[in-house]
């Protein structure tokens, strides 16, 4: 992956220490270290000292060095959360293949970003190695993109249980089992069907009610979480983390009754339930779903035939994977596919142009550039049970 030059139509420039007075007003700065033995902290520190202001709405973090975690620079951002209160878009890890191959980027904990930038709407992350989220809720986030050469099942489980009630775009690059993807098609299923009906390891004793109230200038939420005999309520302005109160009951039943009572009273006052729509999907407002760089793209395509989430999707991205004509035929058979506006199938293993035409004829705008075949692989691999590889591994 190359680094990006523009984001949202705006130019990105590498931030030079001392800044650049001649840069365009709407420039997006990329904080990075270019030299092998350089350090990114002084660059970030210089940027924060000279440029941190509520006017910074977008920030890109590039290469932070080799084999070290970005946690220190994430901490620096968090330390400036008040001055960066206008930050809406953040790309952590705009690191090109030239700088560090995606599978060998050492990432870190992005939880502090979710916890401390409540106004954030767009979070893009490259590099799945050591990626984690110690905080998994965000009221405002609309776009979450995780590009990786291999995501482990622990992280995927965490993502599938995130509370992102306003998420409209989710893109995940599952990657290769050689570079950290340790799951199976079952690991991917929650992103196709949600957690409904899956005999998952979700705590059966816990339940959550999330409500929102919007009227005039009032935009607030109320959330109740019952876990065993404990009831935790959280409330506040939408986009903030609000206040939290925890109360212990004699037993779980008493806590459930209390949660029901409290939520009914809120609904009476005009609060509406958000996050438990009919599809039972993870993210109720999702419009764009990317299940990318997937070894099981054909199986994903097959499962999508029974995925009601497609009814609400505008865009489906199944690029960079191991989809063959078999998976493509499954998409054509999908009853929901006519309602999708666009489908991205770039860099798969599709060879049948007629099938692609059939898919387009059903309505969606189909992109299917750079299809690969077995012999395209750069390296002569040792005989392996897999003949095909996901586009982004190493």
């Amino acid at each position: 992956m190359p680094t990006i030059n523009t984001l949202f139509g705006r130019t990105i420039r590498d931030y030079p220490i001392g800044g650049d007075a001649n840069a365009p007003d709407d420039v997006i700065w990329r904080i990075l270290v270019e030299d092998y033995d350089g350090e990114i902290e002084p660059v970030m520190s210089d940027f924060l000292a000279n440029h941190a202001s509520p006017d910074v709405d977008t920030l890109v973090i590039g290469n932070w060095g080799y084999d070290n975690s970005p946690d220190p620079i994430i901490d620096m951002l968090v330390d400036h959360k008040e001055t960066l209160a206008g930050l809406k878009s953040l790309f952590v890890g705009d690191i090109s293949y030239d700088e560090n191959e995606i599978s060998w980027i050492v990432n870190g904990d992005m939880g502090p970003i979710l916890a401390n930038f409540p106004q954030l709407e767009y979070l893009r992350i490259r590099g799945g190695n050591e990626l984690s989220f110690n905080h998994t809720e965000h009221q405002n986030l609309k776009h979450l993109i995780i590009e990786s050469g291999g995501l482990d099942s622990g992280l995927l489980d965490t993502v599938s249980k995130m509370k992102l009630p306003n998420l409209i775009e989710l893109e995940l690059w599952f990657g290769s089992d050689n570079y950290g993807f340790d799951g199976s098609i079952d690991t991917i299923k929650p992103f196709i069907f949600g957690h409904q009906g899956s005999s998952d390891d979700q705590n059966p004793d816990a339940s959550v009610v999330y409500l929102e109230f919007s009227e005039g200038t009032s935009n607030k939420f109320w959330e109740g979480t019952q876990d065993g005999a404990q009831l935790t309520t959280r409330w506040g302005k939408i986009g903030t983390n609000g206040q939290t109160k925890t109360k212990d009951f004699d037993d779980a039943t008493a806590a459930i009754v209390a949660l029901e009572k409290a939520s009914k009273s809120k609904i009476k006052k005009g609060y509406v339930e958000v996050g438990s729509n009919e599809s039972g999907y993870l993210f109720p407002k999702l419009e764009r779903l990317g299940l990318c760089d997937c070894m099981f793209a054909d199986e994903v395509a097959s499962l999508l035939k029974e995925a009601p989430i497609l009814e609400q999707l505008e865009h489906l991205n199944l690029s960079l994977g191991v989809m063959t004509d078999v998976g493509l035929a499954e998409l054509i058979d999908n009853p929901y596919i006519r309602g999708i506006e666009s489908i991205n199938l770039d860099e798969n293993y599709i060879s049948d142009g007629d099938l692609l035409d059939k898919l387009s004829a059903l309505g969606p705008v189909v992109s299917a550039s750079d299809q690969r075949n077995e012999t395209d692989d750069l390296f002569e691999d040792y005989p392996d049970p897999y003949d095909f590889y996901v586009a982004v591994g190493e």
Partner: protein
Amino acid sequence: MKYLLIANPENRRVAFFQGALAAASHEPATVIAHTDWLAGRVDLAAYITPETVIRIESPGENPETQRQLLIRGARHPDASIDEVDAARVQFDRGRLDHPLQKALGWQVALQELEAILDENPHRAVMNHPGDVAMMFDKARTHDLFAQAGVPCAPYLGRVSGYEELREVLRGADCQRAFIKLRHGSSASGVVAYRFNDRYEEAITSSLMRPGPGGSTHIYNCLKIQRYNRREQIELLIDTLATQQVIVERWVPKARYNGKQFDVRAVVIDGRSRHKVARMSASPMTNLHLGNERGDLDELCDEFGDALLDRIDASAEAALAAFSRSLYAGVDVLVTPGGGSCFALEINAFGDLIPNLTHEGQDTYTAQVHAMDARLGEDHLSEDANS
């Protein structure tokens, strides 16, 4: 003066050098085949006079020379097979077959050469056999570079196998390393290895094939292999380690146009001269692996003109550590961003870069001129022209 060339006579290196001598109006060198003197068919001492200038050429690319070195290696205490078995070894193209004993044989042969030179007065040696032996031993070269303060990829020592490799890397807080045969060249038995808590990878020109009796044979392969499974990597490293390996920190290389590169610089008489950038999609940049020569001009446009000075300084420092050598090829690593240069390898026979001239001279002609200058010889071709 009269040149004596100890070489594989059929090799193009010999023709190139003879050509350079002729261009400088020198008499052709007398050529002694490695196979002849190693087999004792020729008495080297008889060819050495006080006017002789000696040049030692590569013993590579000749299966019979390799067999002779294997036999010679039987005299070394670390030998694994005796002379009789060594003589019977069947040539198997590309296979890493007893590389350690062949290298030890080369070390023994160079010691013998050194003794012959000590006893027989001669005019000069282009590269002293003691230096050649040292350059062929990466462990000793690293020690020498450390003593001389030559910037190079940090040396993490020798390891006996995969387990010790992991131990050494943990101790050094290092996640990327090159594992190289202690006595190797041309990317033979070189492994670029990296790991983290979840996965690991070995990129190498070594192809493993099952040998007889559960053994593993390793072949030099022009196609770069990539191993991701622990058992494979363990087998690879353990098999290579039986032939002695060294470990270096894997310092990333700068990239240009999506390819990583390093620079082969031929240093002659203290000056870094012929330079060629080697562009590669893999961590192995050797040109014989199909990698292309890059354009140094373009690299300077990208990384600044001072890049050449840094490359030259790095290459010259490497050769300066070998005081008894006139020339060598030095592989210089440029770090991402172009800020630093490190000497990666020094090769006594790294001067074979056909079709490249510097100041109008190819590498061989440049060496002949440098030797003449050192010996205070007025240039013969100029004499002939006057």
